[in-house]
C-alpha cells in the first residue's frame, strides 16, 4: 500500500469517526469543574479506613489491588517476551558473562565520569529506596521507586564499564527479583484467604496515619512491585546491552531462527 493510499484511508476513517468523537468530547465534563464521584468518595473515606495518606497507593495496592495484580503480570509477560525474543537466538549459555565484540575498541572513561557515577549511583539507589518505602505517606511507591533503583544500576554501567556492570549484576538474580516480586504480590492476595478473609483483604494491622509503616498489607504488595520493577527493568537494560554485543549474524550462515 503506497503512502498516499494509507493517508487517504486514514482521512476516510477520521471523517467517519469524527462525528462520534466530537459527540463524546462535547459530553465530557467541563475541565476543572468537578471530579468523578468515585474519586471523591475515595478521597473522603480512605484516610480513615486504611490509615494511609497517599490515595494513589491506596488505590493501586488496596482498593483496586486486583487490577494492579493484573498489571503486574502484564509487566512480567512483556519483559519475559522481550527476554525470550532477545535471548532466544543468542542461547541461554552465554548470558553469565560480558560478551565483547571482537575488534571493538574499549574506550577508557575519564576519571571525572567514574567519580561522578560512584557518587551519584549510591545516592540514586538510596533515593529509590526512599521512594519505595514511603509509598503510603508521600508521593511514591513500588513502580516509581523501582524504576529509580533500576536507573541506579545503570549508573554502575556508566561508571565502571560493561564488564564491571556485568560483574555486579547477575542475570539470574534479576530473574529471581522479577518473578519473586510477582509471586509476593500474588501471595498477598492468596494468604488472606487462608485466614478466611477475602482475596487481598487487608488483614495486617493498619498502623498509624502518616506513619512510615501504615497501610498493613499494602507495604508488602508495594515491596513486591518494587522488586519486580527493579528486576524487570534492569533485565531489559541488560538484554538490550547484550544485544549490541552480539556478533553479526552475517558471519553465521546456519543460524537458528529465534
Amino acid at each position, binding site marked *: 500500500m503506497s*503512502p498516499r493510499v*494509507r*493517508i487517504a*484511508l*486514514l482521512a476516510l476513517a*477520521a471523517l467517519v469517526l469524527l462525528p462520534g*468523537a466530537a459527540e463524546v*468530547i462535547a459530553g*465530557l*465534563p467541563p*475541565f*476543572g*469543574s*468537578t*471530579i*468523578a464521584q*468515585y*474519586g*471523591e468518595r*475515595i*478521597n*473522603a473515606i480512605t*484516610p*480513615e479506613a486504611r490509615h494511609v*495518606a*497517599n*490515595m*494513589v497507593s491506596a*488505590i*493501586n495496592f488496596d482498593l*483496586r489491588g486486583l*487490577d*494492579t495484580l493484573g*498489571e503486574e503480570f*502484564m*509487566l512480567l509477560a*512483556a*519483559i519475559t*517476551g*522481550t527476554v525470550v*525474543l*532477545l535471548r532466544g537466538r543468542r542461547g541461554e549459555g552465554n548470558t553469565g558473562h560480558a560478551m565483547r565484540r571482537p575488534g571493538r575498541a574499549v574506550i577508557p572513561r575519564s576519571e571525572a565520569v567514574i567519580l561522578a557515577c560512584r557518587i551519584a549511583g549510591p545516592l540514586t539507589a538510596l533515593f529509590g529506596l526512599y521512594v519505595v518505602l514511603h509509598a503510603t505517606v*508521600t*508521593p511514591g*511507591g513500588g*513502580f*516509581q521507586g523501582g*524504576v529509580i533503583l533500576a536507573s541506579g544500576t545503570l549508573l554502575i554501567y556508566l561508571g565502571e564499564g560493561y564488564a564491571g556492570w556485568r560483574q555486579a549484576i547477575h542475570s539470574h538474580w534479576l530473574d529471581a527479583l522479577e518473578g519473586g516480586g510477582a509471586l509476593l504480590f500474588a501471595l498477598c492476595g492468596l494468604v488472606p484467604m487462608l485466614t478466611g478473609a477475602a482475596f487481598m483483604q487487608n488483614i495486617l494491622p493498619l498502623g498509624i496515619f*502518616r506513619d512510615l509503616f501504615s497501610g498493613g498489607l499494602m507495604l508488602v504488595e508495594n515491596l513486591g512491585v518494587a522488586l519486580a520493577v527493579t528486576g524487570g*527493568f534492569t533485565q*531489559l537494560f541488560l538484554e*538490550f546491552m547484550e*544485544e549490541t554485543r552480539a556478533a553479526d*549474524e552475517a558471519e553465521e*550462515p*546456519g*543460524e*537458528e*531462527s*529465534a
Partner: protein
Amino acid sequence: MSVLPYAVAAWLFGIGLYGIATSRNFIHLVGCLGVCQSATYVLLLGLGYRWGGIAPIFYDHPPGTPAVDPVMQALVLTDIVVGATLTALLLVLTIQAHKRGGSLDPEKLRPMRAGGTSGRGQGASRVSDREQSTS
C-alpha cells in the same frame, strides 16, 4: 479555555496516528505510538483535574481538603508502566524484523516463512526476500 486539555489530547492522538500511518521506519513508528499514548495521559489527568485541588496525598493537608481524582492518577501510573514495557517489547520485535528482513521499513515487511525448508534455510530465504523487495 475549558476544552484546551481535551483538544491537546486529541491533537496528540491525531499526530501520533498520522505518524503511524505514514511511517517508513519501525523505530519511528514505535515513537509515534508513544505520542498516541501520551494523549491518554493528558486526557486522563484532564478528566481528573479540579481547579484548586491538591494532589491526592493528605500528608501536609488534612483529609477533606479538595483534591484531584486519585483514580485517574493511578490509571496514568498503570498506563506509563505498561507503555514502557510494551515499548521495549516492540523495539525487540523491530530488531527481529530487521534481522529477518534486513530493513526497518514497514513497506518491505514480508510474511515469515513457516519453516518450510527447516530453520536452516532461513538465511537463504532472507536473501531472496531482499531481492524481491528491490526488484
